[in-house]
């Protein structure tokens, strides 16, 4: 690991003072489960690491009648065990899929959302776009994007919670260097598909950080997450989906269907949403929504299988949200 300066500020404003506006100079440390590994492999080589671990305000969960505000430093375990997560089954289920006691108690909500892609070319030092996509296209692309992959970015957004949070209309409270620089950004707008190595995969300036995740009250919406993995361990899913639905008189009147691990960003499937809205959730309509989601996929050479999984994940997340048998296991 390259040597760096470590800072453990006590307040949000002190954090901001320590963050540099220059890309690559500072890194924000949350639980460390991703950043420390990246620094060990010298994929990330900051001059200064600013730890959020001493900022008490970032560790709170606050709820009122309209929303729940979860501090970025709340651990995944704390969130899953907090009573508020009962209102958001999609979140709790996504955390419950992370089969590692260690990573759940160590990993934080903010860190989970800001983790860097698992793309093995990126992790081997070939850059986020891995030779502008050439390494992926000519190499092994089995785990890469099946949507939104026309540009040089072929990696998939690694966050396991982002699909659920996007489905639940979560917003981020992002703080910046100026006193009035507080942004409330819908999570779906936070992620982007970079077009060059200079761009990161999320809209966060080097001197900004994520302080809170704001979850609007579900107001009767049902939600669920579903992951398809190779095995049962702590590995990343091949494909995941989260659905949030509002059902009135037996029919879906409003829906959010978001796929994970399929595109450089969480992938909101308009096609699946159009297919399920206005219909009851049944195995047939859920399947049709899955088919609709998959219909616009553009798989690479090695990942046709993920298109299949996208259908299954959408179907099962809808059935699970509606409290029906999903099939499979």
């Amino acid at each position: 690991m390259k040597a760096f300066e470590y800072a453990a500020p006590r307040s949000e404003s002190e954090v901001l003072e320590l963050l540099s506006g220059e890309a690559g100079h500072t890194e924000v440390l949350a639980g460390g489960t991703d950043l420390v590994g990246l620094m060990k492999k010298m994929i990330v080589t900051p001059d200064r690491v600013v730890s959020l671990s001493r900022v008490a305000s970032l560790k709170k969960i606050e709820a009122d009648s309209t929303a729940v505000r979860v501090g970025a430093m709340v651990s995944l375990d704390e969130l899953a065990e907090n009573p508020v997560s009962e209102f958001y089954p999609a979140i709790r289920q996504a955390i419950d899929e992370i089969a590692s006691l260690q990573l759940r108690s160590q990993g934080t909500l903010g860190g989970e959302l800001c983790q860097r892609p698992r793309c093995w070319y990126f992790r081997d030092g070939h850059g986020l776009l891995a030779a502008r996509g050439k390494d992926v296209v000519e190499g092994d692309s089995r785990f890469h994007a099946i949507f939104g992959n026309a540009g040089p970015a072929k990696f998939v957004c690694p966050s396991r919670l982002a699909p659920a949070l996007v489905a639940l209309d979560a917003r981020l409270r992002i703080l910046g260097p100026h006193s009035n620089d507080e942004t409330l950004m819908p999570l779906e707008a936070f992620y982007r598909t970079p077009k060059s190595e200079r761009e990161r995969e999320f809209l966060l300036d080097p001197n900004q950080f994520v302080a809170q995740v704001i979850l609007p009250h579900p107001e009767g919406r049902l939600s669920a997450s579903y992951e398809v993995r190779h095995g049962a361990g702590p590995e990343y899913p091949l494909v995941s989906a989260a659905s949030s639905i509002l059902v009135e008189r037996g029919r879906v009147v409003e829906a959010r269907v978001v796929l994970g691990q399929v595109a450089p960003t969480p992938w909101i499937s308009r096609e699946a949403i159009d297919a399920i809205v206005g219909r009851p959730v049944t195995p047939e309509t859920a399947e049709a929504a899955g088919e609709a989601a998959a219909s616009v996929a553009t798989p690479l050479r090695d990942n046709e299988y993920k298109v299949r999984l996208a259908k299954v994940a959408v179907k099962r997340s809808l059935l699970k949200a509606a409290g029906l048998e999903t099939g499979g296991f």
Partner: protein
Amino acid sequence: MAKKTHVATTINGEPMEFLCEARQSLLEVLRDNLAMTGSKEGCNNGNCGACTVLLDGQPVDSCLVLAVEAEGAEITTVEGIADDSRLHPIQQCFLEEAALQCGVCTPGFIVTAKALLDRNPTPSEHEIRFQLAGNLCRCTGYDKIIRAVQDAGKRMAAEARGASTTTNGSPARQQQKQAT
């Protein structure tokens, strides 16, 4: 030489201060600076659990914790699991039930199992498998580890019950042996 930071912690109940570089992981400091080599390095990337320690009671992969972050923390390592003169029931069950072969993953399993059983001494087989899925073992096929953790939980529960009525754990233990 990179600048060093002073860190004050409590390790296995004893106040412990050390100097470390910011880039050193807690695992590295435990092993190289403090000569506590019970926590093992298997992957140095949070995928194998061999370095698991309890940080303020929570199991963490110490390879992914910067040692400077441990300022003020209470740390329990595998060296702190046994009493002065007696192995912890988890350790005892690992031995009696042959739940280790090469033994290099064993410290991580024991620490993780302690975190699990301290929360819930009677987990189901599935719960144990789920909670230990962050710890890799390549020798045992996990079978005997799962059974040892399950039996250790029963012993811990029996010892907790027996603590008020007997001065040592042996009657409860014998009872438990018959039950299993």
